[in-house]
């Protein structure tokens, strides 16, 4: 197998995993703004646990998209054009969510905040669902023809995997966010987040396990049996650690679950990147969808500099903002009045 396209397949998988791992909890926190927080102060606690970091987390999505474009233009073109409407919904969701994070506190009025809370909740929900659906469909197949274009109408991509993947990412984000809140908050919010995690974890991980198992059944082997087992172990460990009230281990175990889960999915998918449900001959693979070796070589140098650097400075950000956030840390709302 060609070395550079394989390397870039791994990098793209790594970027998607990083996206789900990091933005996973801020998408979840966004949904919990409506599902979990009881009043404005609690909502502000939730918001401020992710405040300094959510934008950096979202860049993983942009980078995953851009890296796919650069390294696998045929994959990028087919996937994004086939899933035109769902990705439109993801984009609108992410736009509202981003603006809402920044604007929510800028006017001191309950109705203003409430509107942006809905934007955060719905934006987080639809983008998590849409990204999950898109990833599930690229790993299980789309109706693409010989040129890589969608056959059929605007919804011909729809099948059960779209729902499964959407549910998998939404539910994962919710329990992942609960683990994150255990780690990042204090007092009542933390205790409730722990209870949410203990009660919700089985449902939170199950759809992703089913999705991983489905891809594994189609293209996996011994390696993916092992990663699947590790994922299951991570989920069980997360529950046990939450039961023991060990928040750091709980979050780490959730991360282990996710990494092993996506590793299963992408390993089983390899060397395909986007199977065609019409004809196996139309499958997009690491070999036939990739850029030239020269381009991949150039991008490897860029990645070699950029990716470790991102880990260092993004990691440093998390360290700077490592303190728990609780209700007593939240300053009073500031109302702006004309001079």
């Amino acid at each position, binding site marked *: 197998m060609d070395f550079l396209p394989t390397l870039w397949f791994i990098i793209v998988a790594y970027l998607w995993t990083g996206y789900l791992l990091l933005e996973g909890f801020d998408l979840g926190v966004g949904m919990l703004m409506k599902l979990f927080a009881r009043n404005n102060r609690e909502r502000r606690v939730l918001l*401020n646990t992710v*405040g300094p970091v*959510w*934008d*950096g987390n979202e*860049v993983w999505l*942009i*980078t995953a*998209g*851009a*890296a796919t*474009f*650069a390294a696998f*233009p045929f994959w*990028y*073109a087919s996937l*994004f*054009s*086939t899933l*035109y409407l769902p990705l*439109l919904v993801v*984009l*609108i969701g992410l*736009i509202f969510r*981003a*603006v809402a*994070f*920044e*604007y929510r*506190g*800028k*006017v001191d009025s309950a109705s203003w905040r409430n509107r942006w809370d809905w934007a955060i909740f719905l934006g987080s929900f639809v983008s998590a669902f849409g990204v999950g659906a898109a990833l599930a469909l690229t790993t299980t197949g789309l109706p693409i*023809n010989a*040129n890589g*274009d*969608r*056959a059929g*109408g605007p919804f011909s991509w729809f099948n059960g995997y779209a729902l499964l993947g959407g549910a998998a990412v939404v539910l994962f984000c919710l329990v992942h966010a609960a683990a994150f809140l255990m780690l990042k908050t204090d007092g009542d919010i933390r205790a409730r987040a722990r209870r949410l995690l203990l009660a919700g974890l089985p449902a939170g991980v199950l759809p992703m396990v089913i999705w991983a198992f489905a891809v594994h059944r189609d293209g996996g082997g011994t390696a993916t049996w092992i990663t699947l087992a590790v994922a299951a172990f991570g989920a069980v460990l997360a529950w046990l650690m939450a039961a023991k009230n060990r928040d750091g281990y709980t979050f780490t175990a959730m991360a282990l679950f996710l990494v092993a889960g996506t590793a299963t999915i992408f390993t089983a998918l390899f060397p395909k990147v986007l199977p065609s449900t019409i004809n196996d001959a139309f499958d997009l693979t690491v070999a036939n969808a990739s*850029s*030239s070796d*020269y*381009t991949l070589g*150039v*991008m490897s140098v*860029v*990645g070699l500099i*950029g*990716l470790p650097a*991102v880990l260092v400075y993004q990691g440093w*950000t998390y360290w*700077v*903002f490592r303190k728990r*956030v609780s209700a*007593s*840390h*939240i*300053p009073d709302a*500031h109302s*702006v009045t004309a*001079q």
Partner: protein
Amino acid sequence: MEALELARWQFGITTVYHFLMVPLTIGLGLTVACMQTMWVRTGKEQYLRMTKFWGKLFLINFILGVATGLVQEFQFGMAWSEYSRFVGDVFGAPLAMEALLAFFVESVFLGLWIFGWDRLPKKLHLATIWAASTASIGSAYFILAANSWMQHPVGVEMIDGRPVMVDVWAVLTNSTLLVAFPHTIFGAFAVAGAFLLGISWYHLWKRRSDGIDTVDDGGKVVVGEGTDNQPGRDKSDHKVWLQSLRIGAAVAVVSFAGVAVTGDLQAKLMFEQQPMKMAAAEAACHDGTGFSVLSVGNLGSESCDDITAVVEIPGLLSFMANGDFKTEVDGVKSLIPQYKEAYGTHIPDLPKYGERGGTKIDYVPVMEVTYWGFRIMIGFGALAAGAAAVALFVVRKGTVPRSKWLMRLAVFGILAPFGANSAGWIFTEMGRQPFVVAPNPDPNGIDNVFMFTAAAVSPGVSTAELITSLVAFTLVYGGLLVVEVKLLFRYVRGGVPSAMPELAHADDGDDDGDGKDKDDVLAFAY
């Protein structure tokens, strides 16, 4: 409308909109970094206030740039899949470099800056805004590298009908890029300059009309203090606005000089690289040497007979193109046959062109757009710079006149460089049509690398989908623009205390002893 037109409208609307936020982000970001540097160095109160106030407006604007930037990254694949397949080997790389090397830095360090006021040592905190704002310039470089390749493809070879990158340095040092980059950056600073100028003018005016500042017999300002129920309107406040105004005006004037010089270089290059674009900028049907100040008639007509140049400056067009006043510049009429010979008269009848295959190619861009786009760009830019120079003179004695109309003019003047930026981009992108990747006419180059816009759109995407997204983006963007502008107005009217609550609540006197540990409260929270 068919898919191609819809996709083009969508790209145009989303990109022009995105580029309302981008220049302000680039220009204001570095300006705020400089203000904060002054504060760290001198410890003077007014610099801290300037940093906080302009930083707040910067963030309100920045977030919309981020949100709409996502669409840019996705829509090549969504609406332009054939384009993405054709150019992916060379075009995706600068986009990925932008994400990996620049946008990551910008987003992460901006988060550190926003929330880091009380967490990071002063100098380290200052470094975060410098990292974020220089990264935004890096972003501009990579994005312009991608765009410049569409204007002037270099560094590739045609292999199996696709351009394959063979020289990344050629792509990153494209002659088109080397002039487009400074031109764009100067244009961004022109926006920031006018923004500082207009808003500061408003506040100096407000201080005068509220009776805080007065002028003596010599016209020199006598700075006053506001009353207790006018928090933050002290002498330091006057310094904030006067210095911001002067910085803004100076930045606007210098940027315009930069824009003009780089624009001239860019035009000379464009006469070589895309002669049709420049002929269309002039609505120049026939070969000639004069620059049209005003042409009337049916600019869109191919016959050229009903276009009349009413006012023309002899020799100027030759100067713009070649640096002399004599060499004739090709007009549209002599260029059309050259283009037809080189790139064909009809769109090939290939499946990838869909129903567009076999139709006649119109090599002349929409002349109303290119002609007026070019003039609005230059006109608005010059107008803003001229006004900024006048403003510098007007405030020499420390404040602005009491005229309400002058104040309104200064505030509306903020729009001029935005208009110039949009017009410039509309001109350069529309002027490239009918190509999405314009051919590189260099005889030693790679003249078979080009792509008609008609071939670039996604074949599998229906018009229904495109209408849905066009309407959705337009409505959402329109709504959010209203919200952003309202919020900006609100924060501008609030003055410095809108960004520094501590100024507004300084006289509350109940900060201590309420049981809450003050050190624990976040200096900034959403």
